[in-house]
């Protein structure tokens, strides 16, 4: 700013013009950011999208070995009443064999990826609820397919086991378990 004719000599006191210049500049920056915010903010998920954050599903019709896909937040959620063999196969897996050792279960954060922690819990081990969106790039995996007879994503070849844990392929994480609870024996609320 030393080129301003009103600016004091080097080392001298700043002038009023310096002060005005700085404050005007700051006001422009803050003002610009303030105006920019609503333009960015409007892109975030809106109230109506967030309002769809909870769905209730009747699972009474699901006998052993049957699955149901429902839509939650625009994405598919798999609800499966697993067979005993599937539960046993998943329980038999050592944690050290897993690519992602975290349960990715929003109901029990930071738990280990044991079959119990992935399922609906003690006594409900046969039930598994997960977001059916491959953790690689978001395709919908196919059920009861792949090398582990769990889920298989056809897009880029990710294999999940019967507990929805990533075992092979490019996906980095286990299929996420959304927040859910059994509100009665046959009703699940997701979200």
């Amino acid at each position: 700013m030393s080129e301003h004719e009103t600016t004091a000599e080097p080392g001298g006191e700043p002038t009023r013009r310096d002060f005005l210049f700085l404050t005007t500049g700051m006001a422009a920056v803050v003002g610009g950011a303030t105006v920019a915010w609503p333009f960015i903010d409007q892109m975030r998920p809106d109230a109506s999208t967030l309002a769809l954050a909870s769905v209730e599903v009747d699972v009474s019709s699901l006998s052993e070995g049957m699955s149901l896909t429902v839509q939650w937040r625009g994405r598919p959620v798999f609800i499966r009443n697993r067979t005993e063999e599937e539960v046993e196969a998943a329980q038999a897996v050592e944690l050290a064999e897993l690519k992602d050792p975290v349960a990715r279960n929003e109901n029990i954060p930071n738990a280990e990826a044991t079959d119990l922690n992935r399922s609906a819990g003690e006594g409900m081990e046969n039930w598994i609820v997960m977001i059916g969106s491959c953790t690689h790039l978001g395709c919908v995996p196919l059920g009861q397919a792949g090398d582990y007879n769990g889920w298989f994503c056809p897009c880029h070849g990710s294999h999940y086991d019967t507990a929805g844990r990533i075992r092979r392929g490019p996906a980095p994480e286990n299929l996420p378990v959304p927040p859910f609870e059994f509100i009665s024996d046959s009703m699940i609320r997701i979200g």
Partner: protein
Amino acid sequence: MSGDHSTYVPSSGVGKWVDSRLPLPRLMHDSFVSYPVPRNLNYAYTFGGILMVMLVVQILTGVVLAMHYAASTQMAFDSVEKIMRDVNSGWLLRYMHANGASFFFIAVYIHIFRGLYYGSYKAPREILWILGVVILLLMMATAFMGYVLPWGQMSFWGATVITGFFTAFPVIGEPLQQLLLGGFAVDNPTLNRFFSLHYLLPFMIAGVVILHVWALHVTGQTNPTGVDVKTKTDTVAFTPYATLKDALAMVVFFVFFAYFIFYIPNYLGHADNYIQANPLVTPSHIVPEWYFLPFYAILRAITFNIGPIDSKLGGVLAMFGSIAVLFFLPWLDTSRVRSAVYRPWYKVFFWVFAINAVFLGWLGSRPAEGWYVTASQLSTLYYFAFFLIIMPLLGMIETPRRVPNSISEAVLSRKNGGSGQPAAAVSAPEDRA
């Protein structure tokens, strides 16, 4: 070359009146009529003009398609079918627009490879080149968002996969993806904003094209010899010489374009995109449009973790990197010789690169399994090695052939029955006609 002395002479009274107030006709005359271009430009240099026309074609057809299109998940698919069946000439306009995107990319890839071959990115044309890469990125964004609009299965799942790239970034990834989508998955808000941006971006492209042409007219065009224009005899006037050459190339280009529109309009598309988007079912084989296939192959080639970077982030970084590396090209090439014509080794590596790029595209269309993965990895390796290793090293160790003293010398030696190599002309300059 920037036209220091304008040759525009307004002929009428009105012309003079305008010229002294807003000399736009003078600017046009100096830029597209009297503008001097190297006399040895070949047909590879006609694609800039073709691209300008393609941009106009896309904007015109796009604007009228928007008059019939409804950007809502409930109506988008049906409105496109309505355009195809009910709207007068709608089928033609839509096929022009859809195939126009493909032909836009065909032209831009030839244009880029021409630049790579003749060293068009080298000093003093770095900014010209960088602006071109910016246009390429804008084109890719525009094409991607446009492909989402018909709301078919490929639209939906392509959008899901491509916005899924952003989830690869740690911490900010998921919020960023939700910001782009306006939700937790591709849905109505996504379609709406993509339509808005798909309408906006072509005009931004047009803006950058103006800067691109401005930069071109400051430095002047390169030419196949890579030798700078030295005297007036090295150049010809843009009109009629370049104008007519561009026009002829454009007609030939449009013959191919018309063949696709009228005979095989869906050849470059996917049948799956005639199935309405279904968020619960993924098509068994998702592939992007052909012009993204090489980059898609690079994305999928990274199947291994690199230190702290997992394979997913690695793939995304490699894919973005494959375009980003182009920005640095002017400084990666260390050779003082501009044109590949006089670089015997670069020429070989260039053609291997070109074939490799096509091969990558083919690999991108294959499922990611078996030997395709290994081949993609090797091809990706060469893609990056070409820019990051071969280009810097080759400039230092390669012995270039003798470069002609001027464009005229190169042109005249060829005319005299020379082999196209300037040596003959130099050895017997008195024989020149």
